[in-house]
């Protein structure tokens, strides 16, 4: 079913009623899971993911080998390395999409996402502080509606913060697209922020992940055909979107921290003095 973009130029509203530079509702929680070292739950529109971080811990026995999801997306040399190994495991639930589609353990798209996440996080986490250890990040996709990779990156960032793993800065991600398909080579195409599933299917788009407040791009994934001239616009919108996401995630973390201090879960120690408590 082709996406009807004809009305966009008239009202400048997208299928779900957003403007070009509007994010969908982002709802996030951290510390959702008592048994894990770090955990998070993130919704970007109807895309819902959960993340559980275990570690840094002693690397367990190698299960499954490199091919399986068990050890998928490992970065670093595990036990022998002087950096911690980041192992990412993504489970896309069968019920997450409208039509049930089962992804086997050898699904290359999932493996690629695992590898992307592992590499993205390994560049940001201070893995050199935990030699000979392993950081296990397992992500569950409960519902998909576009921008999956971006949601996974954001959820993983939150969970890593919750787990207290030192990192350079937030890695935040979002998607950007461009109105009208690649076939129509019109110059007036507008960039769009945060694509939903329908837009992702029909319009060219990219996922961009940036580090903190900077313009530095950690990951950039574009899987559709697009004119080179439109890249700049899309990238600019994407990077800007990442900054908005960072603000939201930052608030989530701070709110949780405040709550923990008020609840008395943690003492308002010396390190926490500079935190705003009002």
């Amino acid at each position, binding site marked *: 079913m082709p996406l009807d973009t004809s009305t966009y130029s008239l009202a400048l509203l997208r299928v779900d009623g957003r403007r070009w530079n509007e994010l969908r509702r982002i709802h996030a929680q951290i510390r959702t899971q008592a048994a894990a070292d770090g955990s998070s739950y993130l919704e970007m529109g109807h895309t819902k993911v959960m993340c559980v971080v275990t570690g840094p811990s002693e690397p367990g026995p190698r299960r499954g080998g490199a091919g399986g999801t068990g050890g998928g997306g490992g970065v670093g040399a595990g036990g022998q390395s002087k950096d911690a190994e980041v192992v990412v495991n993504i489970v896309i639930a069968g019920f997450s999409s409208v039509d049930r589609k089962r992804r086997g353990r050898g699904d290359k798209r999932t493996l690629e996402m695992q590898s992307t996440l592992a590499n993205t996080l390994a560049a940001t986490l201070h893995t050199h502080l935990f030699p000979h250890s392993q950081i296990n990040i397992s992500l569950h996709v409960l519902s998909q509606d576009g921008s999956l990779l971006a949601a996974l990156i954001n959820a993983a960032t939150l969970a890593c913060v919750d787990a207290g793993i030192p990192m350079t800065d937030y890695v935040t991600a979002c998607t950007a697209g461009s109105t009208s398909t690649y076939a129509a080579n019109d110059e007036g195409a507008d960039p769009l922020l945060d694509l939903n599933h329908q837009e992702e299917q029909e319009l060219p788009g990219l996922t*961009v992940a940036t580090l903190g407040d900077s313009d530095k791009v950690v990951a950039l994934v574009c899987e559709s055909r697009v004119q080179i001239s439109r890249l700049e616009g899309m990238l600019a919108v994407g990077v800007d979107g990442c900054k908005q996401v960072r603000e939201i995630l930052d608030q989530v973390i701070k709110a949780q921290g405040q709550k923990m201090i008020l609840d008395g879960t943690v003492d308002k120690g010396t390190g926490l003095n500079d935190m705003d408590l009002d």
Partner: protein
Amino acid sequence: MPREAEPSLNEKNFVLQALQDSVRLDGRELEEYRPLALTFGDQYGVADVTLGKTRVLAKASAELTVPYADRPLDGIFNIATELSPMTSPAFEVNRPTETEVLVSRLLEKTVRRSGALDTESLCLVAGQKCWSIRVDVHVLSHDGNLIDAACFAVVAALRHFRKPDTSMEGGVLTVYTPAEREPVPLSWLHSPFCVTWSFFGEEGDIALLDATWMEEQVRSGSCTISLNKHGEICQIAKLGGVPVEAVSLLQCTNIALIKAKDLSSKLDNWLAEDAKRRDKGGLLAELSAENDRVPDM
């Protein structure tokens, strides 16, 4: 699982320090490719690509099958990548390593998803008969920049490939042998090429093209951009790694376009040369010779 030997600390530092001064071990400029060579096999659809010491062989083949139930009007197009232990002891048979998965995903996105091959043209009888085109990529020698070489080989093999001609008469499908009818080329829409940037240093401020295996082992990030000569991006993959300024990524894309155009014209030349070579003494030549004789009679 056997592991590839890592370069020593000294080697790493040496390479990195040289790169700080924009010097590469093999004396190339940062944005210079190693010598690229392409040979076609005797058969149609075999392309052997050498890029420096990296060598990739791609072979395209076609067979008749039943289309997938959910896509009755499309033919089947697959790219199979195999990194055998011949290439490196780190690769094991039938156990895809991460490299293999990433290479095959990149090829898939670059060639298949970008619609380089018109899969609808492969369908013969809707829902019943279609061509299944399969490209097998074999890496014969791995000295870095596997992706660019493999992508070039796949595109070359597919553009060189000829599938048997068919005809449809009154519901009867006939497939002709090469002797009966000259095989026909695939319906090819555009030729995408991969250009891989490697980034070095903590800040990722040194960027170079066509990294060797040694350079790949010390790099801190990479970005593969696929483009065709019309200036269309087919795919960008910077899967993590060192953070790079957005502006320099845009610059990289622009330079990649120049390289892709360069690769594209090289491939066009080679294909034209091969076609010329095959014409001599081929079926067409025979036909034309007969034509020549006609006036004499």
